[in-house]
């Protein structure tokens, strides 16, 4: 809701009291969700430019040039609050919204990703949320025919009252077909199409910009309902409009409905708009002007059309049988005017409506100090069972129950399915791109800045392990209430971390979204999510390069550990399992070591020296090794007594989550060249042992039964779901 200060500011600028419709319009556009009023002031810390960046942050999707006239579009967004209240429709419309963001730039949508966070699935409510969120994404994404190429799933009690649903859409477009979210020319028509307007999702953005109370069920009417069939028709219709160059501007109806959609296009174009609400096709009678301009009904698009092209546009919309109408015009007066049968319902200066809010004060509190000590650590009595326990942890176990519900192959461009280090899609001209996402919310809880930078580094390693060179970042920053100093401090520190990473690795951030107020207050107690800066990175392969997978693929090859291991046990999955919580200083972000390891690994990939590869992340060296063997025809025989670095025990070496490390399978003949490259970049490397033709996981001092390991890995999550 608007604050007293905001209403006073609007009254002062207008020179009169805003009426009911105007208040509703200001309320949605000045919501945190639409205005970024607490977050935008920090975005200067991000690297946003780069020679590949064709269109940066600010419109529906960022566009990045991958050469030879091929642009990749990326957008990322949250749909957390709706999914908590109505998981099926909330998640489905999250997917619907992100697809609209990408296609509204003229892109063909070619891939989807989803990053999910829930409370522990042993609680029935959380299992219910997970099952229905996945079903919502599955039903919607599968129906519209866009393959799922990646995702992430993490569980922690902090998400108990606030699940997170973050979605990514990837598109492709040629430069001459790009459509901008802008209304540049007065006299052009505003044409809406795709679906009718109803009362669903009224003021959804305002609801998403507050913390949950005990009465969350009442908000169900604020959740939109998706219609994938209508969306598929919109996708096909839009492809035709774009192909014939009929659009002068385009934006989808997202958060804030018609108010935000037309308002932002006028702001981008330096113009004004007049909207005649009685022309909007409705799905229910008796809607007021206010309801029509703030409704968030799904599957709607607003096009800016030049007069000479209007006839053809209407013809195509009619042929495709999609609801549509000319609802207004672009003007030169700088106002957003709402008319109902010729009578004024609202008249707001665009400069006030879009970004004209009074900037609120936010206080950055201090975060608790952390210790590097690991006095809690005890060497496990039985290494094998500790490893089995880790593989069965809900945060490591197989996610195939989730992924098998998503169509990963539609459009027939999927080179690598979900479940490996990165999903890989083929783009025009045989270009191949890899996509991955990451956020370790235990690291970010303990140190938002280091944890965020290091989560991004982990995503980077996912790509490098497959042989892809990272080229772009998108993010979705999920945090608690910015009006609380400690919560705001987490947010600001995380932005600093991501900013550092983007500059350190020269990777532009081209898309993103901020979701605040992910807290619930139950009986006076504030329950806040872990800081969750969800980071997505895409990478590109050298032309003709086949992505390297995780599974061991030759017997009698050497397994190398790349990078040094430090006794970084705080914030690890091992600590979480042993103590039931994380504490201390999480594994450090080490940009220098990370960069050297990345450069060396990419060079070894380019020379074709690596047969299979894994990066070391959650669960440490032990889990990374096991994952290479779980679904391979081969096994390994190792000597893990001497691992480069400063760990003091075998357990520390196996479970530390130190960054900048990889495992690489290299055949005997390629070994000298591989070692030479590692030495050239000063990357510590050690031969751990060999791959063998038998299905064994032999660590030297102990063995792990692969049969038990597979069972733990496969049932770790599903045991709570079936």
């Amino acid at each position, binding site marked *: 809701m608007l604050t007293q200060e905001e209403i006073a500011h609007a009254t002062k600028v207008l020179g009169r009291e805003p009426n009911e419709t105007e208040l509703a319009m200001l309320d949605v556009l000045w919501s945190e969700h639409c205005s970024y009023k607490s977050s935008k002031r920090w975005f200067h810390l991000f690297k946003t430019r780069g020679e590949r960046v064709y269109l940066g942050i600010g419109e529906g999707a960022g566009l990045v040039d991958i050469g030879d006239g091929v642009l990749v579009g990326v957008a990322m967004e949250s749909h957390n609050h709706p999914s908590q209240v109505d998981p099926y429709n909330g998640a489905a419309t999250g997917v619907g919204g992100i697809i609209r963001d990408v296609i509204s730039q003229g892109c063909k949508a070619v891939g989807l990703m989803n990053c999910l966070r829930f409370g522990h699935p042993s609680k029935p409510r959380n299992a219910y949320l997970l099952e229905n969120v996945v*079903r919502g994404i*599955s*039903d919607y994404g*599968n*129906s*519209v*025919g866009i393959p799922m190429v990646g995702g992430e799933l993490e569980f922690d009690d902090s998400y108990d009252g606030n699940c997170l649903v973050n979605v990514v859409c990837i598109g492709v477009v040629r430069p001459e077909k790009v459509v901008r979210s802008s209304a540049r020319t007065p006299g052009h028509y505003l044409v809406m199409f795709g679906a009718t307007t109803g009362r669903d999702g009224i003021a959804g953005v305002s609801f998403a910009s507050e913390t949950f109370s005990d009465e969350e069920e009442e908000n169900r009417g604020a959740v939109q309902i998706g*219609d*994938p*069939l209508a969306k*598929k*028709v919109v996708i096909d219709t839009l492809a035709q409009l774009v192909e014939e160059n009929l659009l002068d501007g385009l934006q989808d109806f997202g958060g804030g409905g018609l108010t935000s959609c037309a308002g932002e296009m006028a702001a981008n174009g330096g113009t004004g708009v007049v909207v005649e609400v009685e022309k909007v096709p409705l799905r229910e009678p008796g809607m007021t002007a206010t309801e029509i301009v703030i409704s968030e009904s799904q599957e709607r698009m607003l096009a800016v059309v030049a007069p000479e092209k209007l006839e053809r546009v209407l013809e195509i919309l009619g042929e495709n*049988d999609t609801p549509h109408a000319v609802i207004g015009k672009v003007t030169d007066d700088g106002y957003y005017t709402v008319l109902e049968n010729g009578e004024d319902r609202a008249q707001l200066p665009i400069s006030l409506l879009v970004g004209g809010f009074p900037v609120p004060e936010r206080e950055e509190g201090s975060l608790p100090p952390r210790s590097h000590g690991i006095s809690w650590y005890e060497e496990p009595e039985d290494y094998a069972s500790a490893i089995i326990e880790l593989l069965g942890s809900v945060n490591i176990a197989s996610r195939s129950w989730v*992924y*098998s*519900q*998503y*169509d*990963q*192959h*539609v*459009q*027939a*461009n*999927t*080179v690598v399915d979900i479940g490996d280090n990165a999903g890989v899609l*083929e783009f025009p001209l045989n270009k191949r791109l890899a996509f991955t996402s990451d956020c370790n919310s235990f690291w970010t809880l303990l140190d938002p800045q280091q944890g965020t930078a290091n989560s991004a580094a982990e995503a980077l390693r996912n790509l490098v392990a497959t042989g892809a060179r990272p080229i772009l970042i998108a993010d979705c920053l999920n945090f608690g209430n910015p009006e609380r100093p400690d919560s705001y401090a987490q947010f600001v520190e995380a932005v600093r971390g991501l900013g550092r990473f983007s500059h350190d690795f020269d990777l532009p951030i081209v898309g993103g979204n901020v979701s605040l107020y992910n807290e619930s207050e139950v009986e006076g107690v504030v329950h806040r999510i872990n800081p969750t800066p969800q980071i997505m990175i895409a990478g590109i392969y050298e032309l003709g390069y086949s992505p390297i997978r995780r599974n061991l693929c030759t017997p009698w090859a050497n397994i190398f550990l790349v990078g040094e291991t430090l006794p970084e046990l705080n914030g690890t999955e091992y600590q979480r399992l042993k103590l039931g919580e994380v504490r201390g200083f999480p594994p450090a972000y080490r940009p220098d070591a990370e960069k050297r390891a990345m450069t060396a690994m990419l060079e070894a990939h380019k020379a074709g020296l690596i047969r299979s590869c894994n990066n070391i992340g959650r669960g440490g060296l032990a889990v990374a090794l096991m994952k290479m063997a779980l679904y391979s025809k081969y096994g390994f025989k190792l000597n893990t007594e001497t691992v480069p670095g400063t760990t003091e025990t075998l357990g520390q070496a196996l479970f530390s989550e130190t960054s900048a490390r990889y495992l690489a399978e290299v055949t005997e003949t390629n070994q000298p060249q591989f070692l030479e490259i590692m030495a050239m970049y000063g990357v510590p490397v050690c031969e751990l042992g060999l791959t063998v033709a038998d299905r064994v996981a032999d660590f030297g001092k102990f063995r792990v039964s692969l049969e038990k390991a597979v069972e733990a890995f496969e049932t770790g999550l599903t045991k709570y779901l079936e």
Partner: protein
Amino acid sequence: MAIAVLRFPGTNNEQDVIRILNSIPGADPYLVPSRLGASALREADGVVIPGGFSYGDYIRAGAVAAVGEVIEGVKSLAEEGRPILGICNGFQILTECGLLPGVLLPNNSARFVCKWVYLRVSEEPTMFTDGLENAVLRIPIAHAEGNYYCSPENRSMLHAHSRIPFRYCDEEGNVTPESNPNGSIDNIAAVVNEEGNVMGMMPHPERAARAALGSTDGLPILENFVRGTKC
């Protein structure tokens, strides 16, 4: 040869199919939006009904598409002996409209399933499996309603007349309960009509037709289909 690729509202595999057909010599695929009706099929030498979610699958998979006017055109071509191939939702439409026996029920998991599966090709030759007799193919599936079911009479008839070209199997080609991804009776993944010119299959051959995608096992099925249009 002119191959009509049907698109109902909600069909979403039509471009994938057209792309692969274009790579097969002699195939001249063209898109037919269903609203154009049966007359748009007049010149067709064969028809593919691709996968997707026709009309959102809102009533029952394929049920609305099956009563569309354009289906009358498909039926006439089938009667003339032209090859008709229904993939995934296309298979569902072919059973719904009566060109193929049986029905496709919701998967026994009650969930959508997307995965790579192995298919055992029947040893009896059909137009679509020429040269593949007894082979084991690796092709992906992606469906919520792929659980093939039919009456006991139809079941014995399908077996007796060798009208089951593909059955789900394991990597070695053994047709086992574990390799059945959706609960289909007798692991049935595809059936053909009595004349042998209409086939419906749940797996997606067009998604296993380029080496970059990890398998080319689906390509010969589409090549056989194209060859069939020339007869």
